[in-house]
């Protein structure tokens, strides 16, 4: 049974990690495309329109990948987590079905219109289709986050005698205090990824001395959007989220911050250190006293519960992984703010395009916002353990009762092989599109 749970979790983790490479770009990128299209409407300068259409090509490749890797996510609720689906389907089925019905179709239909219909529709309608693609992708994110928020902090439900959770209040799903901060944090993080992608393609063009005009535009846009979004990820949205964790999932908070023992007179913030689960302490720790209490409660002396305050079975079952995910995410986020602030400064001084070292650095930084986004989700999901629905349904109670571990391992290996191929094709295709660069409209 342990093998079973492990393979089910691994398959879900693997497929969702691979899937989320794509939506995290498309959500943010759609906003940047809308911005370019809007600038074109205002100024009638052709380069903005070219930029919008170029990034819609990148968007379309990512969207296709998102669709084909997204369908398995929907199916896996039933195939691998049948017990969970049976018990909670009446609730999370609502938001998931809405996602499938509304946002997915908004996005896919208007994407086709955007790509094919510019000449047919005229510029204002073309802008509108771009805007609806953006709306669809953000609605999709919102409904997925609403589903996840219910699992993190269940509201508006009733438990029947047979153990099923049934919906008692539909609107409560959307008034969930977990939802709003998590959604905004997620969207801003997605915008960070997109800004870095836009900026790094720009940096690549400038360094390669090809499509330089577009390169400068991309870099400028990427830096401005990147600066704003990386600040907003940390404050206030990141801050709101950690306050939610401390309020609703205090055991997870202790684990992700690496607090093994409750300290009297205020908790320190850990910058570096390796969790030692045997000795119940952090090895090689570097920490600043009292700062965590201040950040959490705006009071230097407030006590924060450590892991020693919770029973073993209430603590997340992989503390080191959770701790590292959280700390690497925060560390990367800090680096992003630094790089973007510096770049903005040089952009303002009109020197950015000539500082080769910084351009190289921006270009090579592009995988890291992806990593930070994925780690953010790892924090949410590992932090929720050992529960599927926090406080109510344990992860071990959610797996399919009749699927054997051998079958799951078989499909996991299949997914790994197929996604490896998919990843290769994706890289080749995106590489080709970037290499071609934005082209003026053919009329």
């Amino acid at each position, binding site marked *: 049974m342990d093998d079973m749970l492990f393979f089910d979790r691994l398959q879900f983790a693997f497929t969702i990690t691979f899937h989320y490479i794509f939506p995290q770009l498309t959500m943010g990128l759609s906003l940047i495309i809308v911005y370019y299209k809007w600038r074109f409407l205002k100024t009638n300068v052709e380069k903005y329109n070219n930029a919008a259409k170029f990034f819609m090509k990148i968007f379309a490749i990512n969207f296709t990948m998102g669709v084909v890797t997204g*369908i398995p996510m929907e199916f896996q609720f039933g195939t691998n987590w049948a017990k969970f689906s049976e018990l909670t389907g009446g609730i999370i*089925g609502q938001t998931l079905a809405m996602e499938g019905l509304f946002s997915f179709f908004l996005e896919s239909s208007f994407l086709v219109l955007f790509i094919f219909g510019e000449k047919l529709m005229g510029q204002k309608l073309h802008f509108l289709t771009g805007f609806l693609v953006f709306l669809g992708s953000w609605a999709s994110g919102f409904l997925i986050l609403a589903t996840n928020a219910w699992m993190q902090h269940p509201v508006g439900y009733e438990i029947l005698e047979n153990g099923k959770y049934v919906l008692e209040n539909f609107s409560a799903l959307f008034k969930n205090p977990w939802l709003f901060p998590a959604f905004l944090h997620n969207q801003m993080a997605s915008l960070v990824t997109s800004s870095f992608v836009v900026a790094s393609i720009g940096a690549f063009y400038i360094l390669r001395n090809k499509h330089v005009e577009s390169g400068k535009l991309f870099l400028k846009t990427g830096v401005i959007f990147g600066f704003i979004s990386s600040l907003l990820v940390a404050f206030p949205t990141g801050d709101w989220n950690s306050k939610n964790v401390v309020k609703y999932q205090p055991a997870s908070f202790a684990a992700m911050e690496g607090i093994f023992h409750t300290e009297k007179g205020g908790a320190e913030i850990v910058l570096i250190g390796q969790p030692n689960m045997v000795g119940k302490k952090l090895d090689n720790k570097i920490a600043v006293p009292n700062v965590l209490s201040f950040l959490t409660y705006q009071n230097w002396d407030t006590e924060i519960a450590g892991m020693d305050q919770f029973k073993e079975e209430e603590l997340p079952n992989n503390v080191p992984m959770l701790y590292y995910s959280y700390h690497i995410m925060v560390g990367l986020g800090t680096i992003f703010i630094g790089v973007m602030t510096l770049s903005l400064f040089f952009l303002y001084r009109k020197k950015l395009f000539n500082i080769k070292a910084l351009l190289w650095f921006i270009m090579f930084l592009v995988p890291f916002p992806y990593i930070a986004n994925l780690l953010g989700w790892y924090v949410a999901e590992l932090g929720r353990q050992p529960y599927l629905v926090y406080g109510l349904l344990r992860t071990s109670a959610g797996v399919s009762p009749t699927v054997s571990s051998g079958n799951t391992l078989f499909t996991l290996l299949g997914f790994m092989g197929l996604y490896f191929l998919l990843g290769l094709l994706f890289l080749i295709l995106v590489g080709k599109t970037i290499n071609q660069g934005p082209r003026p409209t053919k009329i």
Partner: protein
Amino acid sequence: MEIYWYSIIAVVLGIFFVLDGYDFGVGIIHLFFAKKEKDKVVIAKSAGLFWDFNEVWLVAGGGILFMAFPTLYASAFSGFYLPLIIVLWLIIFRAISLEFRNKFDYQMWKDIWDKAFGISSLLLALFFGIALGNVVRGVNLGGVSNGISAYEAHYFFLPLWDSSFSPLSEHPGIIDWFTIIIGLISVVTLAIHGANWIILKTNSSVNDKLKTVVFKLTIVLAILTVFSLAIWQVVNPNSLNNFIDKPYLIIFPVIYFTGVIGLFFVKRFKKDIYSMLFSTLVILGGITSSLASLFPVILPSTNKVNNSLTIYNTSASQYGLSVALFWGIIGIIFLIVYVIVQYRFMKGKIDKMDYGH
């Protein structure tokens, strides 16, 4: 309330099989009849321009099933674990073969993706038919062996096949001689449907030949149908009861046979759209007849110990179902309007249209 949602799911699934059905069929025809490069491109394009918004209906159907009948969703998806995951792989494979074929101008590259597109379409059509066969045959709910359930009464697990390949064995597998026949019916039907779509939407050089193909396949379909109806009685002896109790349900088989008969006249139609309409009737009639023969059961039990799964013992709460009706109906109307707009936007022959993305 359950009946509303059952009907909505039937409509969504019906639309899915009509729409995505033709692009599976296009793949099958592509595999066997597209020889010249020009035909290969245009035939693949007649699926490639549309597949993604056809598959929106699969996503919508899956989501609605999850919301309205969570117990059925959980039971069927875990019980049909392997075939479902294999279907997912095939869908992914098919999607990438359509999207990537024309990205590079190497003959080998194109050949690989052409074959991948054809074979994955063929297997998908086969698997969807086999799935329908499994539903009407029923499954061993509760994993009963010697009168004792091995697990909860509404769960089951089917291996891909059982060494006897018989639908009548105590533990039938996914693939047996009955489900294979239903699978073949599905392949033939969708091949006809796909051929009709190619004739309607393209100017390929094989269009005339395809009309003959449709005609011949319709003969095969008629024979397979009669044959399957005979063994249907052996596999599921109760399958006619509903039609006897509620004679108005006969409308569904009538739709099916109208479609089959209509297809025999494929060469005489003045407009290509007519043969497309008749193959649509075959698909809709086939699905609805199968569902009607089971109603209100959705997944019959093959043992006497555990009850079949019905729309009443697998549904979500009444409150949930009624709240969802508000947004569900709005959503479906949106979706239908969107399909109409989309297809009007891409009306006419597609040979001259730009290849997407």
